[in-house]
């Protein structure tokens, strides 16, 4: 029937695959050994140059020529990066900084060269730059502009690694420009990638936030959420502006919830009324606002806050009850203040308060054991 011929054909391809496997393994183990050897050579060369620097010298021009010759190969770039991280336990050591500064001009040519390469290699170069830890006061402008160009490539990893490099460069203007570009290209699939990245920015957060805030109204919903979450972790100077977002009913729900959280972190008296209003909202459609607002009321003093929280402890929503019990705990009320809950008819509210009480005791016991 000829079916055995088809099987013979498959068998041949599979045998080829197996041979490929074996050859690949041999080549790969050789490549690993070569990488190790190249890393050793680079490490020795770097140490030698750092010794020269420590003795008042400069990086040898031959060393720079060697780097120019070898680093265009991705394998050598990997070895060089390994050697850099191996030879400088303290990247801020003056000799290490001096060495990187002198080598830095080599990277200009490399950046242009890798910009022409396939996405994977370009992404690796961007990663390499982020690990190189360039200082803001070096001549980084051209490289930063190139990194912004890297971000136009249709590869998530290239974009994310270019962003990593820009966080390290520490230029607020370039990073803002890059974020606008990202927004235009709709290039970041998850807002957490940007928020967590921004938190690692090595420049002036205050200035960056200022620049981002200027562009804020024009940004897309997802990027605005990332930026607002980032601001929440880094600055309490935007209470008035964030209050506007929180109260604007036409804003996106996630953004407004992030704004509510902002006031949990930075208590702001003018926001109290709005928070109480969210917390008292019993409409099931608004339970997320209520649950977050209740959790943010812990640092706000006042009988009105306690009354709203006591009411929220009876909510039909599990999360609102849990957050109300937690917030009440932070008001340091005694048993008499909470007697209406502990001895009331609402079993759900009572159970939640009991749980928080047990939880508090457990934490106290744990810290005693730790001490």
């Amino acid at each position: 029937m000829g079916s055995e011929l088809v099987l013979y054909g498959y068998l041949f391809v599979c045998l080829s695959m197996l041979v490929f496997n074996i050859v690949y393994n041999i080549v790969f183990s050789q490549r690993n050994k070569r990488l190790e050897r190249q890393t050793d050579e680079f490490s020795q060369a770097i140490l030698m140059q750092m010794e020269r620097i420590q003795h008042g010298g400069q990086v040898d021009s031959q060393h720079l020529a060697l780097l120019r010759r070898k680093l265009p190969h991705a394998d050598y770039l990997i070895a060089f990066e390994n050697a850099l991280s191996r030879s400088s336990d303290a990247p801020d050591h003056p000799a290490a900084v001096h060495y990187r500064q002198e080598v830095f001009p080599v990277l200009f040519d490399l950046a242009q060269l890798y910009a022409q390469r396939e996405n994977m290699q370009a992404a690796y170069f961007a990663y390499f730059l982020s690990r190189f830890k360039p200082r803001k006061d070096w001549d980084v402008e051209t490289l930063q502009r190139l990194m912004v160009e890297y971000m136009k490539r249709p590869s998530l990893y290239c974009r994310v690694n270019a962003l990593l490099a820009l966080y390290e460069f520490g230029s607020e203007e370039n990073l803002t420009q890059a974020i606008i570009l990202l927004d235009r290209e709709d290039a970041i699939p998850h807002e957490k990638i940007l928020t967590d990245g921004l938190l690692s920015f090595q420049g002036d957060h205050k200035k960056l936030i200022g620049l981002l805030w200027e562009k804020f109204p024009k940004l897309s919903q997802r990027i605005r959420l990332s930026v607002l979450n980032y601001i929440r972790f880094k600055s309490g100077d935007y209470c008035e502006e964030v209050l506007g977002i929180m109260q604007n009913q036409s804003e996106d729900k996630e953004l407004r919830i992030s704004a509510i959280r902002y006031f949990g972190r930075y208590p702001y008296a003018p926001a109290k009324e709005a928070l109480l209003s969210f917390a008292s909202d019993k409409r099931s459609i608004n339970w997320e606002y209520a649950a977050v607002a209740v959790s943010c009321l812990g640092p706000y003093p006042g009988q009105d806050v306690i009354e709203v929280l006591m009411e929220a402890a009876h909510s039909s929503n599990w999360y609102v009850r849990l957050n109300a019990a937690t917030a009440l705990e932070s008001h340091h009320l005694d048993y008499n203040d909470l007697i209406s809950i502990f001895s009331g008819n609402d079993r759900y509210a009572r159970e939640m308060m009991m749980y928080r009480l047990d939880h508090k005791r457990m934490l106290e016991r744990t810290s005693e054991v730790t001490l």
Partner: protein
Amino acid sequence: MRDIFQTIFNYIGVFFVLYMLGYSSFLFLSVIVGSSTLYSAKRRNMLKNELINDCYIPVSIIVPAHNEGVTIEFTVRSLLQLDYKLYEIIVVDDGSTDDTAQIMQNSFHMVPIRRPIQRKLKCREILSVFESRAHKVNITLICKKNGGKADALNAGINAAQFPYFLCMDADSVLQFDSLEKIVRPLLENTNVVAVGGAVRPCNGTTLENGRVVHYSMPRKILPCMQVLEYDRSFLASRILFDKFNGSVIISGAFGLFKKSIVIDAGGYDTNTMGEDMELVVKLHVFCSDHGIPYSIRYATDAVCWTQAPEKLSDLCKQRRRWQIGLYQSMVKHRRMLFNRTYGLVSYVSYFYYLIYELLSPYIEVFGTLSMVLASALGFLNLPFMLMYMGIYIAYASILSLTAFFARIHTIDLKLTFSDALKAIALCALEVSCLRYVIAWVRMAALFGYRKKKMKWGQIERRRINFKSVDTPAASDTENGR
């Protein structure tokens, strides 16, 4: 009469040739696609084409445990070694009759707590809750009435505080970077609702703080053959199906899920033995029916180490359970077959599992009986049949070896020469013998199924050879307890 038999055997022959060709083509395609995917993933990782910055998606790890006194402490200790910041561990003691709960309480300084747990999913009565804050992450122990693994997982989901949960077996160990790797697809695509990881047998392997410090093939033949079988199935079908969002199985030993969508879909089905497969098929159906854009992914580099049964009787129990689970899931969601609403999952994945997994034992046993009958009646062309079988065994063995070596090379495991020889020697045995034993067990699984459908059967538990900084090696404490 002879002519009639001749015609019947001709038809049977044509059917089997087509069946074998279909299967061989599928295996061929999946191993080639799987191997190439692994090699390109390795190159990508070398060139740091991965999400490197610290993005931590909070994950609740749920460990259902029923009479897992032997393994539970080491499983939880291994979870405490994970290289990840934002997670919690929830152990659900599903009505154990041994000292599982006591071991948990003593080993992790757990205290009873009156914690109200929201019943988002139905589960059997929760008897008590214990918590511990004395470790790197929060540990919760839920003691409930026995209701089966699916019921325990539902209880764990109810108690989970984070938006994603990871289910695993109490006798498995996660590699130190597995959590970081399994959440990456979520960061790359917000439509991802579930991610499966790679499960590897750990018999013969030594793990230290979640890292493999010594890898070798198991000493016993049976687990050794299972290593080859696992690699073939994980590398082959799962990677291929992942290419078109067609995965219908995420192993119960290691899978990550979006909690809200699982709750909306109704959680784990307590009436099936294959709750892991049933959930994934249900997610396909739920998302497609409700027009929810979704993706179910497979993370090849997220590794979970598990114990392969070392006794044939244990292996048979396990495979019987899998076969019944497969049957239940496929019957329950039978409207998926050739249904345009579900796209390629329906036409490729479901069809493949129906023909080459669920029905394959019957077809294979029927084939064997046909051969015996044909031989008795003098219709069998014996030399041709032997040649055909020989080619098939050689072919399937080479595919197994390709999958095995591709996996070994791409996850940087070192294999000794003798282990490589062992793999080569055993692959033909696995394809020609073990496969038929398992086929027989799977075929028999559905006989008397209604009577014994929810009986899991006990499988002998051993501790995984895991060492951590704060605990002695498993084998050291075995006698000291």
